[in-house]
């Protein structure tokens, strides 16, 4: 990242900011279907203007710039209070793995459509009985001729009910150690035998689904990488997901805190308790900011997944939960009244963001799993 001259990045940032101001980000509807449609159009708009796949190769439909450009654009998008494109799972999680491990054909056929939003991707990793212990997954794929036949169940699959494609982890060899028998399939969601069921979260959102697979036929050519070697790709995928998500989440939180400060200023409150809450939020943000400078360095150096990622994840959890608990704590009794503006704060927004923050220590590897990784792999404590 240090290879990109600062002036170039500054100019790129200025262009992005100017474009975003000119185009005017869309309003995001509450209704789930309407939201999906708006955000898909937004992805197309971004794609057409050349803002997606910034670090991807030209063949993949990208711009052949750097990670640094990508990070700058993410920052500007968030700062402009613009929504993310709908196909984020594809853009940040699955795409980089296909780009790295895919065949030329897979890259050529799948990646440009992923970028443009023509294909929306989802991610079929977790299962009801395989959460923290992902490698114990039980969805089976058996090769019959040139097709895998897949049966099983996935959960926490965002937008599965709207997606065209799914990155699916399956067990192709049940006879070996659990990580060893896993393969990574690219599955057309219109295949017969797939049904989805949205799950409602306590935030009211419903973008997560259960996915049921019943004798689903997947062409052998849709295997990513080699059979039974899907776990390495999974680690790569989860690594991309984590660093990308951490960096984006940092900016989102920074913007959230700015918004909250603006609302509190308009509320005109004069109370040490409010000041202390703002102070604590600011400290938590600066801690996260300092930590993500290290993440950025690692991304630029392309070190790949390391146990240090778990430290990042724990720091992010704590910052996210601190900032949003502090802000939501200022809603007082009017937290229960979404239309209220206690101390100037929008009750509905902060109650929602606060609830959402509780998931931070669960998804993408629970805090418990991260602590074990830090203790054993980073500090060398004996395995229990």
């Amino acid at each position, binding site marked *: 990242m240090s290879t990109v001259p600062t002036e170039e990045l500054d100019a790129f940032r200025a262009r992005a900011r100017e474009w975003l101001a000119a185009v005017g980000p869309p309003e995001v509807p509450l209704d789930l279907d309407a939201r999906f449609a708006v955000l898909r159009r937004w992805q197309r708009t971004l794609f057409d203007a050349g803002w997606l796949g910034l670090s991807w190769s030209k063949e993949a439909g990208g711009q052949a710039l750097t990670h640094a450009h990508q990070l700058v654009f993410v920052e500007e998008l968030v700062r402009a209070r613009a929504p993310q494109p709908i196909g984020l799972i594809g853009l940040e999680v699955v795409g980089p793995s296909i780009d790295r491990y895919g065949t030329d054909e897979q890259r050529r056929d799948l990646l440009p459509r992923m970028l443009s939003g023509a294909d929306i991707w989802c991610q079929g990793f*977790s299962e009801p*009985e*395989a*959460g*923290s*212990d992902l490698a*114990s997954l039980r969805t089976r794929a058996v090769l019959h001729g040139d097709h895998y036949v897949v049966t099983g169940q996935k*959960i*926490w699959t965002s937008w599965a009910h709207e997606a065209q494609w799914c990155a699916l982890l399956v067990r192709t060899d049940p006879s070996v150690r659990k990580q060893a028998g896993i393969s990574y399939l690219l599955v057309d969601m219109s295949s017969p035998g797939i049904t989805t069921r949205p*799950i*409602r*979260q*306590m935030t009211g959102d419903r973008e*997560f689904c259960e996915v049921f697979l019943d004798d689903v036929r997947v062409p052998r050519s849709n295997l990513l990488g080699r059979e039974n070697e899907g776990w390495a790709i999974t680690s790569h995928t989860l690594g991309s997901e984590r660093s990308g998500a951490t960096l984006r989440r940092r900016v989102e939180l920074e913007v959230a805190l700015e918004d909250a400060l603006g609302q509190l200023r308009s509320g005109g409150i004069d*109370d040490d*308790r409010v000041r202390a809450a703002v102070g604590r939020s600011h400290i938590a943000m600066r801690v996260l900011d300092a930590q993500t400078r290290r993440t950025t360095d690692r991304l630029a150096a392309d070190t790949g997944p390391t146990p240090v990622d778990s430290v990042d994840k724990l720091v992010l959890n704590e910052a996210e939960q601190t900032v949003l608990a502090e802000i939501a*704590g200022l*809603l*007082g*009794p*009017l*937290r*229960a*009244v*979404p*239309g*209220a*503006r*206690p*101390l100037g704060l929008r*009750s*509905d927004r902060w*109650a929602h963001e606060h*609830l959402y923050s*509780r*998931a931070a*220590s*669960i*998804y993408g590897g*629970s*805090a*418990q799993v991260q*602590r074990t990784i830090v203790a054993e792999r980073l500090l060398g404590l004996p395995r*229990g």
Partner: protein
Amino acid sequence: MADHDEYGAAVDDYLGRSYAERRHELLERGGWDPALASEFADLGWYSLAVPEEQGGLGVPLAALGPVFLQYGRHLVRGPMLEHSALPALVPGLAPATGARPPALVDPGVTDLWADDLGTITRRGPRLDGTVEAVRFAAQADRLVVVAGAAVCLVDPATRGVSIEPLAGADPGVEFARVEFDDVEAGTVLQDEDMVVRLRSWARLLLACELSGLARGSVERTVEHVARREQFGRPIGSFQAVKHLVADMHTRSTALENLCLAALGDADTAPPTELDLLACTAKAHASDVAVRVCEDAIQLHGGMGFTTESDVSWFYRRALALRGWYGDPTELQVRLGATLLDRIEEHA
């Protein structure tokens, strides 16, 4: 308190038998359901602490504590506080004859957010002002209005009263905005102690309800971690999980004991002491319930984050009740102020 446990036990028994399977469906529909309110009225739950001469059982208000603990633990929705406590506390307020509750129109729910909540002013028998959030005002057939040191009874149909239902984020409660424009109060009770009693009993019973929410979360979590397997064994056999659950249980138990001790002392306490007892219980209950519910969700993993799990409902109720009649920090400041202003009483 031991002699009052019978009411809590009876309520627990009924709810376990005939509320558990309707719980999610009812909660999905919001806080108000006339049929449910009538059902509880028929069971006599609302009249426990109502004086005998008004047709109640006349048990001490403290006996409602274990009952509210069960309401929390079973995630009961509806105007339980309004139906059970107001007729017991306000002379002249007859118990409900139908499902509709009285509502408590009180700007004194909070200190720090007082400007956001509104005020009521009284000149003689006339009332003016607004309270931005009142529980169950749109369903109420009587309004109990706190205006300064007076408690006034107002028929919601009185000219000048406007009640506007609001969207709410407490799955067990309906809210409305109440505005008085030169409203004639039916009855005016000039009684500063009654204002203290109203607010203190609201705090005490909400503390019990929060304590029940915490208890329910602990119970679900113990069941979950004993059953749920990861890495080839129940997650409850992992020491870090055990210790978290042990802390949840310890905090929840200590909170219950605090609530029961406060109730035991409350019936005979003079107003200043009653206020201290109630603020203490409510402050601690709010903190503990929210924290225990957060740990419960953490240990339930993704499923705890969905509306299909009870723990998500416990948590949302705890968050909504946390700030009602004092969020923990403002109550801590208030307690400290009272204690520091006191003349030292011990030799």
